[in-house]
């Protein structure tokens, strides 16, 4: 059943590094919301842009209208980051004092950091930036639990489980199960459901 949104539209950004399963996460989340009657617009890019670079999916969730596939600057309501520095990158462009951030703490170093040309901020610096720039924030080690489940890429599902727990969006285990029954091959369903459950327990 469709419950009313805290705000219409809800602007959600899912960000990470190419190969972390950003697109899959945005599809699953959008599917869960369309199934219960919302109008969802997703904006994203794939192709060369994802080779090791920063990636972003914009989700606009509304009860009434189709929106631009690009969220205006300073207007994100929720940022889900599969990589912590990517949370900051999105936050400085799309953040505002009311934004909520859910971030995976596992770092993926950019090439410039590996070569020594740039420094990567410490987790403390990242946490303190979250404190200053968000209304709510959660930093969880989704990659470690995904590795324990057998595949680091499951961290995207762990994050969706955690997102459900925040209750920022009208999603739950039932809507997740319905969506993966429809769009995931049968061999991936059980492990995804487990990853979702593990995620809900991390907050």
């Amino acid at each position, binding site marked *: 059943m469709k419950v009313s949104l805290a705000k219409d539209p809800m602007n959600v950004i899912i960000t990470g590094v190419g190969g972390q399963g950003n697109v899959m996460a945005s*599809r699953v989340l959008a599917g869960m919301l369309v199934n219960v009657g919302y109008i969802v617009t997703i*904006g994203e890019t794939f192709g060369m842009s994802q080779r090791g670079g920063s990636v972003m999916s914009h989700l606009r969730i509304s009860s009434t209208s189709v929106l631009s596939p690009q969220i*205006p600057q300073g207007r994100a309501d929720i940022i889900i980051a599969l990589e912590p520095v990517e949370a900051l990158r999105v936050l400085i462009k799309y953040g505002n004092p009311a934004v909520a951030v859910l971030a995976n703490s596992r770092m993926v170093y950019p090439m*410039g950091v*590996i070569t020594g040309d740039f420094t990567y901020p410490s987790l403390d610096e990242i946490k303190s930036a979250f404190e200053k720039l968000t209304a709510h924030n959660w930093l969880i080690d989704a990659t470690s639990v995904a590795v324990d489940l057998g595949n680091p890429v499951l961290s995207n599902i762990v994050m969706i489980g955690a997102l459900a727990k925040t209750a920022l969006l009208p999603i739950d285990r039932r809507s997740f199960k319905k969506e993966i029954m429809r769009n995931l091959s049968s061999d991936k369903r059980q492990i995804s459901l487990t990853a979702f459950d593990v995620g809900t327990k991390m907050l």
Partner: protein
Amino acid sequence: MNKLFSPAKTEILFMGNEAIARGALEAGVSVATGYPGTPSSEVIESLSEVARERNLYVEWSTNEKVALEVAAAASFAGLRSMCVMKQNGVNVASDFLLHLASSGTRGGIVLVTCEDPGALSSVNEGESRYFARMLEIPLLEPANIQEAKDLTKWAFELSEKIRNIVILRSVTRMSHASGNVICGKLPEKFRTARFISDGSFMDPMKGPVVSTPVVIKHSLQQKKMQKAAELFEKSPFNSYSGSRRPELLIITSSACFLYSREAINMLGLQRRVGILKLSCTWPLPAKLLNKYLRLTDKIMIVEEVLPFLEENIKVAAMGMLKDTGIKTFYGKMDKTLPSVGELNPDLVAAALSKVIKVKAKSLPASYVREIQKVATLIPPREQTFCPGCPHRASFWNINTALKLDGREGIVCGDIGCYAMASLWPAIGFHTVRTLHSMGSGTGLASGFAKLEDFGLNKPVMAVCGDSTFYHAVVPALINAQHNKADITFIVMDNAGTAMTGFQPHPGLNLSAMGEAVPAVDIAKICEAMGAKVAISDPFDLEETSKILTSFMAERGSLKVLIMRQICALSPEKKGKKKYQMKVNEELCLGEKCGCNRLCTRIFRCPALTWDRTKKKALIDEVICAGCGVCYSICPQKAIMKTEAEG
């Protein structure tokens, strides 16, 4: 069930490209062809998945021109067909397109072009709307995901009404956006093919399909355009929203319609600014424009990338001055909007604020100050070759051979992930020095090799990918051989059209529909041309380097090296490590080694990182693909490889 089969009236989340595919299915398309290219590839990909059930022939063609020819044959035989490509594909297909538009077509045929304003995944931001005007072809541009489906279906009907090809133009933010779509009915009957060509020369349905006699056929083509314009005047796909007397009228198309609407809402200008959304953008519906240009004296045109609508609306408005009065136009030509790159709601809002003099709500100053502080903490994240990417090893080999040769040889690049070897900071060790259209690297190399008499005496190399080889390299390579161009030509064969998602190409024995087909062998083609051909595994640094060095030393002829290694992201390889990699901390001398951190500063694999506390190299096992190449580059032999289990 594949979601393209969703029953009528179902509301479902479709990507723009899936919506286009569904629209074609609802129109009863029989033949769909294309050449992969971001952001267009998912149209043909999703159709290939439902081809059998929908009695559809789907083909990844060698290039866009051939794709359009294959699709046109189906139209000549009375079937509905579609041909899909990215923006620069239209350039490739344009020679045939010119002739096709003048010969006319029979069954509905739609050319879908998915373009990339801002070049998010391209090396150009070219656009093909000008082809519609130049070649006199109707042009449609969907403005949301539902319309992407509905307009595609209507494009087939339009094509059959005027008996000519129709262009449907999408952009990245439409093709790769997703949204709710309410499905229509899928047809139950399929057409049969019949090609009648023994009728009168002038009979468009029964005569031979030719563009001659040219002047008469040209006049017929222009009548078709007039008919299209009449249909556009009444089309529900063009619509106005706003008050009866707005201060400003925005005329827009495609994704820019969504940006404009959002910008108006952001600034609270719903009563002051009206939007005329045009989804039928060539030929322009003049009566419709006449009606809406009267609403106000200020007109802003919002579009990507070039001022196509702006130019044409201005020309149309000149002819209507008596009815509409004098207008002030805002757009790209007067720099109200940027003339390059893609637009977004913020850019449109900024343009609106300039014209209407309103201010957008801004963030609190203290928040902005915090943002500025945090911004200094964020390291840039450039694109790189993936962990385990064969191209990193290939360019390592090329770079090593060039350095050993010592004559500062020139490497010409081409289109694929390996194009990143032309980027700064170094990806592929700054090896590639030219980058243009598909196949152009080989043509340029053929030209550089002929400049010796003018004083340019350097070894010349060209690189290309396997799919690119078939697409446009073959004529350039024949040119090089025939004109005795001394080049070392390298095919980086990673067994598929990797950048766009592993679509099959003529080198593989699998078709778009999953059928077994004969593979066309690159080595044999090159041998038949008379070139000296070798094949190597780029992960075998020693052997590959040896071949390259000997090829560069051999003067006066065409040499071909095929570096063969499957893409690390390919379904066969992904997630399967060949080797377990580990740095032996006792052997790694760190910063004292003298190699100047060859592994982490120069080789640049995202999985080969630097342990800041121990000051030694470190493998990130979560990211490492287990290709084993870094084992070969460490002068200390401190990077260990063992066969991975399972």
